[in-house]
Structure formats: structure tokens, C-alpha cells
């Protein structure tokens, strides 16, 4: 096999790359199976979306190296929505009407919602990732979602936290709720309120703060003044780091501290917070303690991590890569299983099948969400100083919930780390 590339072919490839940077030319061949997606490669959601793109590219390389699907290469076509929902409708219209993609994948709640009418009007199958409870409003039968929220999305972000909290002896009686005035955190705190009612707790602090907040000392002081047994926080990455640091600096030690804290899942923030994360409880999608039961994830991450370092994205890859890889595995298995890209057949196949993926078995319920939720709630333990490598140890994340994945009990009170 000759590896030589003609000058004309090289020129054509270069020109193609310049004209269509969102297409993976290496995967092009006769009649490829095209998967179209909008990704937030710039703007507020860029760091996660770049990780999504890299994971998808690794899958496409893997599947094409094995000969593609049904003998056809798989090709990814993506456009940057700039983290702006207003761009999503025309991106998905272009993907479906102009690029004629065979399959549509979306990423993110706010970017999936505006894509829904476009997809629904064309009766297309939609495979969503990282989207929270979008189909609760649309009830579209061809919608599927690979984030493991299960059928009750808002509840899933906090249920595990409160399940773990109720294991504290003596049982906690009071709770403080605080969240950023933004979409995810409000949903998380709203779900937490339902959990508070369910477990008969008393709310002693319930506030929101504006997203641009940078000084979290006053918020933590306010919470501390109300002396809650446990603290549930719905926060975004910058707030997450600010809340944890402020709690440490002020020596705040409730029985349990954490919540739906976006950012604790990502390598850069983990490494930066380091031992300040000790005893914090937050949600995760994958942690090394699951490696025994999901043996295919670590080899995939071994390939992802060096490329992520080059690309400047999440270097651990626990958060989205396994889920994204599995999303594309499901699509490939569905195309293989139905013998084509007929949207009716694909929908019926996905609804009826339990998929074997590197992220575990996945089956979808009537609303297109995971039949059973698998949001992990973990407590960070045994961290020293700062640094990324320590998070690769299985005991750095102790899984508290769900029970089937549990690797340890909650350690209370919240005392670890440097104060």
C-alpha cells in the first residue's frame, strides 16, 4: 500500500479543508453516512463542546478504521453555533435541507431546544447529548438523549445528593439552597426543593445570586449564619470554584457541602481546586472507580487524553467523552441493525434495543431518556495540593449514589482540605 499522496490530491484536500472545515475529509468516500451536529465551539460553552467534538472524531476514526457502517464510511459535519440558541435553527436547517445529513445529533439544553422544531417538522430522528428535560415540553417520539438523567431530569441532579445526606447520623434537619440565576442551576435547585419536601427537611436559606458574581464570601457567610446541616449549591464553573474556596477560607463546616456544581467534573478545575475539593459532594458522569465494570472507557480515554492536551480541552475526559462516544456507537449500531438510515426504522430500533456501549448498557424509555437514571453523586477524597494525576486514582471519587455503583459511605462533616 502506497502512502504517497499526489500533489493534486493534496491541493484538493487543502482546498476542501479551507472551504469545509466542519467536515472530516478523511472519512469521505463513496456514499458516506453523514452525521450532522451543531457544536458550541466558541462562546460560553466552548470548552465542553470541544471535548464533545474530539470524542466524536475519535469515534469516527475508530469506526472508519473498521470499515465504516454497512461498508460505508461515517462522516461528521458540524457547525459552530457560538453558544447562541438563535443560531441553532438555521444550522440544523442547513444540515438537514442543504447538507442532507443522515443523522442529527445535538449538544446542550439551550441548543437542543431551538433545534427541536426544525427536526420535528422534518420528522427526523434526534439524538441529543447533554440536554436536560428538553422533551418534557415537546414530547417528540423520535427524540433520544444519552445523558443519564433518566425520566425525571430535574430530580436526577439532586436526588443522589439527598439520598446520601439522609445517611448521616443523626439525620440532617435543615438545609441551605443557593444557586446562580441561570438555567442549569435554577433547575438543579428547583429539583433540590422537591427533594427537601420528600425528605422532610427544613429550608433555612434559599437564595439566588447573579451569574457575574465573583465574591462568594458574603454568600457563604450568609449561609453559615443560618447554620444549616447540609448545603446544596447549583453553580457554574467559576461560581463552583469561588464557593468552595470561600467555604475553605471561612472555615465553614456543615455536615455536607456540594450539590449540582458544574465544573467539578472537568480536569482543569479539579486540578486547580485540588485538596480544596476534599469532602465536597457533586455529580459526575464517569469516574475511574467504574473502570472494572466499564473496561472499555479507560482505553478510549488513554487515546483521548493526549489529544485533549494538544487541543487545550478537558484533559481527564471523565465528563463527556465516554457518553459522546457511546452516543455515536448507538447510532452506528442502529444503522447496522436496520440496514440503513430510514428514520422510522431507526426510531423503532433504538426504542426497542438495549445497546451495549463502552459507557454501559443503554436503553431508552418512552420519553427518549434513559430508562433508569445513572447520575453519579461522588465525594472527593484523599486529595493533596493541586494537580490532575491524583484524580485518576479510583479512590479520589467515592461514589455515594446510585446504590448499584456505590463504592463508599459519605464522610461527614465537611472538614477535609486546607482551611
Amino acid at each position, binding site marked *: 500500500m502506497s502512502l504517497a499522496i499526489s500533489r493534486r490530491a493534496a491541493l484538493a484536500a487543502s482546498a476542501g479543508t479551507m472551504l469545509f472545515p466542519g467536515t472530516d475529509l478523511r472519512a469521505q468516500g463513496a456514499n458516506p453516512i453523514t452525521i450532522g451536529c451543531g457544536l458550541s465551539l*466558541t462562546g*460560553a460553552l466552548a470548552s465542553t463542546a470541544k471535548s464533545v467534538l474530539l470524542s466524536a472524531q475519535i469515534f469516527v476514526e475508530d469506526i472508519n478504521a473498521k470499515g465504516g457502517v454497512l461498508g460505508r464510511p461515517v462522516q461528521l459535519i458540524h457547525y459552530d453555533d457560538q453558544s447562541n*440558541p438563535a443560531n441553532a435553527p438555521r444550522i440544523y436547517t442547513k444540515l438537514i435541507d442543504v447538507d442532507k445529513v443522515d443523522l442529527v445529533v445535538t449538544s446542550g439544553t439551550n441548543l437542543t431546544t431551538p433545534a427541536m422544531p426544525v427536526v420535528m*417538522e422534518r420528522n427526523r430522528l434526534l439524538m441529543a447529548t447533554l440536554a436536560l428535560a428538553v422533551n418534557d415540553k415537546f414530547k417528540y417520539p423520535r427524540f433520544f438523549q444519552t445523558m443519564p438523567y433518566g425520566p425525571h431530569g430535574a430530580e436526577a441532579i439532586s436526588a443522589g445528593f439527598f439520598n446520601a445526606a439522609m445517611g448521616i447520623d443523626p439525620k440532617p434537619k435543615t438545609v441551605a439552597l443557593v444557586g446562580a440565576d441561570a*438555567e442549569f442551576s435554577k433547575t438543579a435547585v428547583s429539583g433540590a426543593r422537591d427533594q427537601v419536601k420528600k425528605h422532610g427537611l427544613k429550608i433555612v436559606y434559599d437564595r*439566588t445570586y447573579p451569574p457575574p458574581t465573583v465574591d462568594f464570601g458574603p454568600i457563604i457567610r450568609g449561609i453559615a449564619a443560618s447554620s444549616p446541616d447540609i448545603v446544596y449549591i447549583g453553580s457554574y464553573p467559576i461560581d463552583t470554584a469561588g464557593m468552595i474556596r470561600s467555604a475553605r477560607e471561612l472555615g465553614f463546616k456543615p455536615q455536607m457541602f456540594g450539590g449540582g456544581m458544574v465544573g467539578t467534573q472537568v480536569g482543569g478545575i479539579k486540578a486547580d481546586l485540588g485538596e480544596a475539593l476534599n469532602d465536597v459532594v457533586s455529580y459526575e458522569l464517569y469516574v475511574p472507580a467504574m473502570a472494572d465494570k466499564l473496561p472499555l472507557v479507560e482505553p478510549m480515554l488513554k487515546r483521548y487524553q493526549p489529544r485533549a492536551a494538544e487541543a487545550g480541552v478537558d484533559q481527564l475526559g471523565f465528563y463527556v467523552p465516554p457518553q459522546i462516544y457511546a452516543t455515536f456507537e448507538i447510532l452506528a449500531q442502529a444503522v447496522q441493525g436496520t440496514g440503513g438510515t430510514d428514520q422510522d426504522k431507526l426510531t423503532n430500533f433504538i426504542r426497542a434495543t438495549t445497546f451495549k456501549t463502552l459507557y454501559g448498557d443503554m436503553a431508552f424509555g418512552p420519553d427518549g431518556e434513559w430508562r433508569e437514571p445513572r447520575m453519579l453523586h461522588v465525594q472527593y477524597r484523599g486529595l493533596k495540593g493541586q494537580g490532575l494525576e491524583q484524580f485518576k486514582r479510583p479512590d479520589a471519587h467515592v461514589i455515594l449514589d446510585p446504590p448499584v455503583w456505590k463504592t463508599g459511605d459519605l464522610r461527614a462533616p465537611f472538614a477535609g482540605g486546607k482551611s
Partner: protein
Amino acid sequence: MTGDAPLSRPPMGTLAFWCWAAAFTGVVYLAGRWVTNDYVFFAGYIVLQYVLLATAWNILGGYAGYVNFGTAAFFAIGAYISTALNKWLGLPLPVLILAGAAVCGLIGLLMGGLTLKLQGVFFSIATLALAIVTQALITNWEYVGGAAGAYVIRPSRGPLGGSYVEYLFYTMLLLATLAVCIARTVERSAAGYGLAAIRDDEAAAEAAGVPTMKLKVATTVLSGALMGAAGAPLPFFVTYLDPPSAFNLAVAVNTIAMPLVGGTATWIGPVIGAVLLSIVQEAAMVTISSAVNLLLVGLIMIGFITLAPNGIMGLLRGRRR
């Protein structure tokens, strides 16, 4: 930007211009009925939305020289009024547009009354503050979803036949045409000359008997109302409205960049700038990269400000001379 004399007036009278504009709208409508690809309507909607916004901005920023950084606030208020009334009463889109325009016109009146005594950079800072305050208020307005955003389920078919997006495109076409006609009418009226006098030297204009305050407030009302009308269909276009997308920086930046690129002294400048820049941005998004989008706008703006401060129309006028 200041000190421009209007370009040589086209010989066409105002009534004839309105007739030609109506004919143009009709031709585009008929041509649109042959288009079967919705992407054309999606992309066209964005171009027309920016024609409307740039024209609205130019009535105050170009004709009177008062730079408004609060475009996103008026645009977002129009969108949120539309969302709220749709949720409350389920009114048809044209009524929602009128309501959005009316509320934004009223806000323009209040803002104009309070801030137009300030000149230059102080007025601009006040408009920027309006955008920030409005975003904070809407983020805490739970009826329209607050920070979590609001879902708007649009019908799949429009009332004119065809898809609902096609209907949105024609609605925006009508609004943009109307805005251009209004802008040209203002430009060629006594009010237009008064605004040009304010732009050149407000104190001299006042001394010459131009009712500067009344003119500025009236212009702010008109400009705000048109921006509100531009925002009103947005919830149906996106189907999901949250504060970051309604108050998006790109809206404010583009709305100022487009008249600057096209030329601020005449009605045609913002139209040229809006069509040019929005097409460049759309092309960049689906070919090069979105990361390049705002960079392109920034570079084009810098280029025009330094090399052609009177925009494309200024360049053309220079050639004619």
C-alpha cells in the same frame, strides 16, 4: 461620521419610493413562493432582521449622531413582550409585533426624556446601562422563564401557507421594508434636516430654532419602536428565549457595525452594511468558522473607521466627485 452632508438626493419622491418598496416586497414574496428550501428563509430572516435593526439604529445614531449601545435592550424587550403576551393571551404575531413596538417606543420616550440632555459619550453610557438593567430585570421575571428561559412552541405551518419560518421571513421582510421607507422619509423631511443639524452642531441647531430636544426624543421613540418590532418575532424563530441569547453581544455589535460600514448619513448605508455583513457572517459560519465571525466584523469595522469613515456610501460619493 459627523459632519456628513447627505448624498445627492435621488430624484424619486417619497410616495414613489414607498410604491417601489411595496413592489419590491411583492416581488420578493412571489419569488419566495418558489423557494422550497427553508434554509433560505432562515438565512434571509437574519439578513432582514439586521436591515431592520441597523436602519432603526441609524435613525438616531446616524442622522442625529447619538450613539445608542442599548440596541440589545430594545430588541430583547420586544422579544420578551412578545413571549409574555403569547403566553398570556396567545395573540397573533402581527399584534405581538405592534405590542413590542409600542412598549419599546414608550421605553424610548422615557429613556430619551431622561438621558437626551446628556450628550456624546454620556448618552452612550446611559444606553449601555439600560441594557444591563433590563437584562437583570428580565433574568428575574419568572413569568417568561427568568434565567431558565422560556419555550415557545410555534405552529409548523404559517397562516400564508408554507412553513412558519417562511411566514416569519415575509413578516420580517415587511418590517424591514417599512423601516427603510420610514428612515428615508425622515431623512428627506424637515425633521431629517433638523437631525443633521443636531449631528453637526447641536448648540448651533438650537440657536437656529431647531427643536432639538423634541426631535431627539421623537427619534428615540421611533428607533426604539422599530428595534422592539425586530425582536418580537424572535421567540418564534428560535422557539426558546433566554436572557443571554436575547441580549446577545453580537446583536449590539452588528447593529452598530452595519451602518458604520454602509455609511450613516443616508437610509441606504445601513441596508448595504446589514446585507453585506450578515451575508459575510452567515457564509463564515457555515464555511470557515464561527470564531471568525465577530473577528471579521471587528476587522471590517476597524478598516472602515480608519480608511473609509463615511462607509461604503462615503467611498462612492468620493468617487463621483
